[in-house]
């Protein structure tokens, strides 16, 4: 008893010590109206592959901002890196939609002035003020790249690709299905249910009431015995499609292209129920030490050339419509391959990842949050 109390006191003391300097730093309000001289340095938290020398080197040369990168393994990693030690250790983060709202509400990132980013006006409309990085008209970062979550099919072994997500819930495909190992996958089931069981009343696959979440979980539990593998890494699914017996699964364009490059006859289709998708945003830490270099980075990384380079390197779609021509110049036909020239309606139809929160967006607070989703996902996998 005594020892526990001592431990508690020590911990509280430690937390207090850590919290005091954090509380002491406060930022003045008001957005910058111009970008000053660079500070010579820029620290980033990024997905691996997002800061390749081919587009980072020209930036360093042009601005004098030396880029230092910390790669994150998951959205949760990113979130923790940005809030640990009171923040301020990193200037920017390339957050995905399942982390961006959390970063905003935890006040780990600050509002930016999109007027300072020339390429912003060239973005597809869907990425100028998307719900995953813009709250009440305030922009908490600049959209970067995105990708749809497609239905991948081996056309030689499976046959003609189906036009519906029903195929991954169909018992006749038992042992051939691969599904991403991520709680956000519940949204895919919810999207499917919103079309096939309208009685449930699912409007937004990321805003589910308890009953709607239970329906999605029930569907996913039925799917479990059919699943060959819940994959954690993209390379796992590539492996499973090459020699693991999987012929159909929920996937990303990245795997489709990697397998095609290896001469595996796969296609990635967008089924009639629509798709979910992920979208990344460069966000500025609320305690950024090098804000000018950060703005210079946002100005640079949204230009057509680095947008196209990154899209082709990583297998994703740029948000700048002018990147299309550059993509085709680098690799013929790649613009259409990654849907970088689709009509606006295509981008609007993708349900992009959002952090599930208890606030349903319609004033009601009865939605299930990301913690409930994580628990539900553990139940699904069993």
């Amino acid at each position, binding site marked *: 008893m005594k020892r*526990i109390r001592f431990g508690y006191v020590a911990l509280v003391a430690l937390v207090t010590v850590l919290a005091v300097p954090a509380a002491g730093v406060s930022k003045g309000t008001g957005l910058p109206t111009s970008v000053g001289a660079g500070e010579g340095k820029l620290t980033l938290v990024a997905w691996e592959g997002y800061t390749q020398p081919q587009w980072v080197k020209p930036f360093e040369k042009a601005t004098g901002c030396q880029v230092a990168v910390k790669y994150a393994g998951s959205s949760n990693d990113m979130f923790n890196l940005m809030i640990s030690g009171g923040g301020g250790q990193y200037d920017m983060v390339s957050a995905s939609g399942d982390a961006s709202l959390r970063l905003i509400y*935890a006040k780990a990132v600050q509002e930016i002035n999109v007027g300072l980013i020339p390429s912003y006006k060239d973005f597809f409309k869907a990425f100028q003020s998307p719900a995953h990085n813009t709250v009440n008209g305030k922009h908490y970062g600049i959209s970067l790249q995105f990708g749809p979550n497609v239905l991948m099919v081996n056309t030689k072994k499976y046959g003609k690709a189906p036009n519906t997500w029903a195929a991954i819930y169909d018992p006749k495909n038992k042992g051939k299905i691969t599904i991403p190992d991520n709680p956000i996958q519940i949204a895919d089931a919810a999207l499917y249910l919103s079309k096939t069981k309208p009685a449930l009343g699912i409007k937004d696959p990321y805003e589910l009431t308890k009953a709607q979440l239970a329906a999605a979980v029930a569907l996913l539990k039925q799917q479990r*015995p059919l699943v060959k593998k819940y994959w954690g890494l993209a390379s796992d699914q590539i492996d499973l499609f090459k020699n693991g017996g999987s012929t159909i699964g929920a996937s990303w364009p990245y795997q489709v292209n990697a397998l095609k490059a290896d001469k595996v006859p796969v296609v990635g289709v967008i089924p009639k129920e629509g798709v979910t998708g992920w979208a990344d945003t460069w966000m500025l830490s609320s305690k950024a030490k090098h804000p000018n270099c950060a703005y210079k980075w946002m100005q640079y990384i949204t230009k057509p050339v680095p947008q196209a380079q990154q899209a082709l390197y990583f297998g994703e779609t740029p948000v700048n419509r002018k990147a299309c021509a550059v993509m085709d110049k680098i690799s013929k036909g790649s613009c259409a391959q990654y849907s970088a020239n689709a009509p606006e309606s295509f981008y609007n139809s993708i349900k992009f990842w959002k952090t599930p929160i208890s606030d349903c967006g319609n004033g009601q607070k009865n939605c299930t949050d990301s913690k409930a989703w994580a628990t539900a996902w553990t139940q699904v996998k069993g």
Partner: protein
Amino acid sequence: MSVDARATEGSHGGALRSLSRLSWRRPGLKTFGQISAPVAAFLFVYVAALVALLIQSFWTTDSFTGQAIHSWNLDNFRAIANDPYPTIILRTLVMASAVTVTCMLLAFPYAYFLVRVAGPRLRLALLVATTLPLWVSYLVRVYSWRLILNPDGALNYFLNRLGLPDLNIAYTNWAMWIVFTYIWFPFMVLPVYAALERVPYSLVEASADLGGRGSTTLRRVILPLAVPGLAAGSIVTFSLTLGDYIAPSLVGGPGSSLIGTVVFESLGLANNAPFAAAFAMVPLGIMAVYLVLMKRLGAFESL
């Protein structure tokens, strides 16, 4: 200059000498001085971390910001009783026991062969071969098993050549059982080998002189003397299986979550450190019981 030097040396030596005199007069103080540093390190690194874990397990997190809410409650422990956690705990226990028993069954005859049958050169070669996998990264070993067990992998290739049907055990609990057994095998062989090596040959001869047949000698002389080694090995294989989350995620399939998976996902995906802390108490409890059992079997005498 020489005077100065001598003066410093003298005062220095004096302080040291008085310290040594003090430690001679107070032996308790001497012991304290010698071990206080490692004890402090132990307290801060091990015990403090465990206490922090215990304290944290009574908190909850704000699901949105991931920050801990410091209100004391037992919610996390109550949640452990909810579906699917009891199934996962049970599955982990069964898996850890199965792996441990399999390792024992394989390691005992192998270690016996090393000690009694193999010549010195073969013994050395086999011991090196046993520990060889430990020099290779854990991940490489698990991935190589994936290549073997895949439907188009080496296993089915050889089965087909022998005219046998395909065995589709990739991404199942069977695959996990094989991989765990393979990976922890050296940790079982070494203590069993050490235990058997300590059995004097004269005991075997004495048993034979008293009319004990080979099987009787094995059962009543050698096996009881090997028990501490088996128990020591089992502590390693059992506890490592309890905590592992990499093998389930790489070679397991649907319905292969273990305790380690839940802890990892609570931290890595859900950002729910308090629940992870509470759940980490489960293997801690299991191991405490297990260690008490193993102590009865004399496991700690051969560690």
